[in-house]
């Protein structure tokens, strides 16, 4: 059995790569779904248990959301001339770094640490960490709500509930992410002033 932390890190890297590909190629939701299935197959091949797989799905959706948020932050930084691919490499680094620091560093600590490099980078990393902690709770909440409320009335109810939950989860995460990004950016501007 692969060590839990190692498998999570590996899955994180794989999922982030997938996200990068999706964003670079600007693919639609169907392709996203196909890639998610491929990723799940990889998880199965690696003999990772169901719990880890579920976590993987959470991470996958999470980083999909994250990519949009970081892209937004990069746009805020007026470096739109950079290619989307380069932006995604940045995002990849941000996510990996944030994962490493997730368990050891607080949000405030991260902002303080990375603001030397760039306030926006600090905000992005802090945001990544914050959301890594936020996603499982949000997913559990959304799925629970739809399990109670949504009744598609067919043999594939569970799948339909899962699909509608994923869509709501992505929207909700995006909405919250943008709000958090705005709040963190404001906070860091107050603490550290405008970035030159």
């Amino acid at each position: 059995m692969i060590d839990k932390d190692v498998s999570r890190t590996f899955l994180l890297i794989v999922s982030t790569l997938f996200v990068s590909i999706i964003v670079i190629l600007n693919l639609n939701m169907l392709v996203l779904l196909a890639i998610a299935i491929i990723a799940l197959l990889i998880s199965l091949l690696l003999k990772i248990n169901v719990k880890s797989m579920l976590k993987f799905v959470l991470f996958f959706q999470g980083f999909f959301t994250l990519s949009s948020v970081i892209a937004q932050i990069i746009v805020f930084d007026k470096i739109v001339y950079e290619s989307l691919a380069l932006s995604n490499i940045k995002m990849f680094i941000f996510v990996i770094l944030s994962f490493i620091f997730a368990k050891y560093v607080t949000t405030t600590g991260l902002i303080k640490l990375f603001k030397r490099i760039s306030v926006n980078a600090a905000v992005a990393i802090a945001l990544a960490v914050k959301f890594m902690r936020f996603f499982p709770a949000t997913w559990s909440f959304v799925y629970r709500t739809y399990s109670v409320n949504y009744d598609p009335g067919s043999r594939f109810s569970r799948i339909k509930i899962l699909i509608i939950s994923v869509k709501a989860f992505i929207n909700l995460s995006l909405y919250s992410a943008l709000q958090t990004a705005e709040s963190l950016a404001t906070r860091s501007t107050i603490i550290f002033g405008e970035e030159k």
Partner: protein
Amino acid sequence: MHINQSSIIDNNLLDKSLHKLSDGQLYLFLVKLAYLQKAKLLLLDEPTSHLDESTYNYVMGLMKNYAEANDSIVIIVDHRDDAAKYADYVVKLDNVQDNCYEDLPLVRNKQGDTALVLENYSCFHDGQRTINPISLEVKRGEAVAIYGANGSRKTTLMWGIACSINCKGTRRLSGKVFIIPQTPIYWFDNVPVAEILQKFNKRKENIKYVAERFGLDENLMSYNLSIGKARLLSLTLAYLSNKEVVLIDEPTIGLDCNSKKSLLETIQKLIDEGISIIITTHDMKFALNFERRYILNKGTLVEMQ
């Protein structure tokens, strides 16, 4: 009022993860943190939306003490004027009072069959009992309010009734349950209102007509709805999905007087359709509109006389 700074944050709160605190507990925690920061200017946004009456009075006392002791300024914005008795200055931005829904008691639909029965029903979290054994019977077309202070486990009870957490005991339902969560308010997809309504339309009704009846703009994107309208959308979904029991967790959070009035009117429409409503709230004024009321205290439910 003198407050010992070392006891300002109680140990019960310190032992919990922040994300496990209820909305009210989190608000209280933030107020206490602000108190310890000794800021010269402290701004409180809508405390009555988040705090029950007794906690609210405690917080107001704390703020008064804080302002005097630290020579600081505390500014409170609220849709209710309860802070007036604590404040040195009151600025009114409009003339709306928080009593516009007081003469709107909900009228029970007389259909009479039982919609929900709970007998000796208790819920657990991490192996510990969070809801003590309760017995509750709700008729079709009846509205029940469960009042509880911050941290009284109102949300846990709601998810317990929805059978979404680990509970034991008897639970009988004549139909299905619909739950309207406290947060996030926007639990649905970010698409036009009409699309969401259509997805839940078990009654096969005309969406345009339903939207009009419940006061919704069918063309608006759901995330562009105000908090009040988002709650109305949730209630409309409950109606369209043909559920018999609707659970609403803290429906008044973030609502002004007129929105609370619209909410009550919408609840009445659901009652008229024979739907049973159970709400939890920290707002006693709002709960008074309900014919049957219960108090929840640390997981124990008692009927109010």
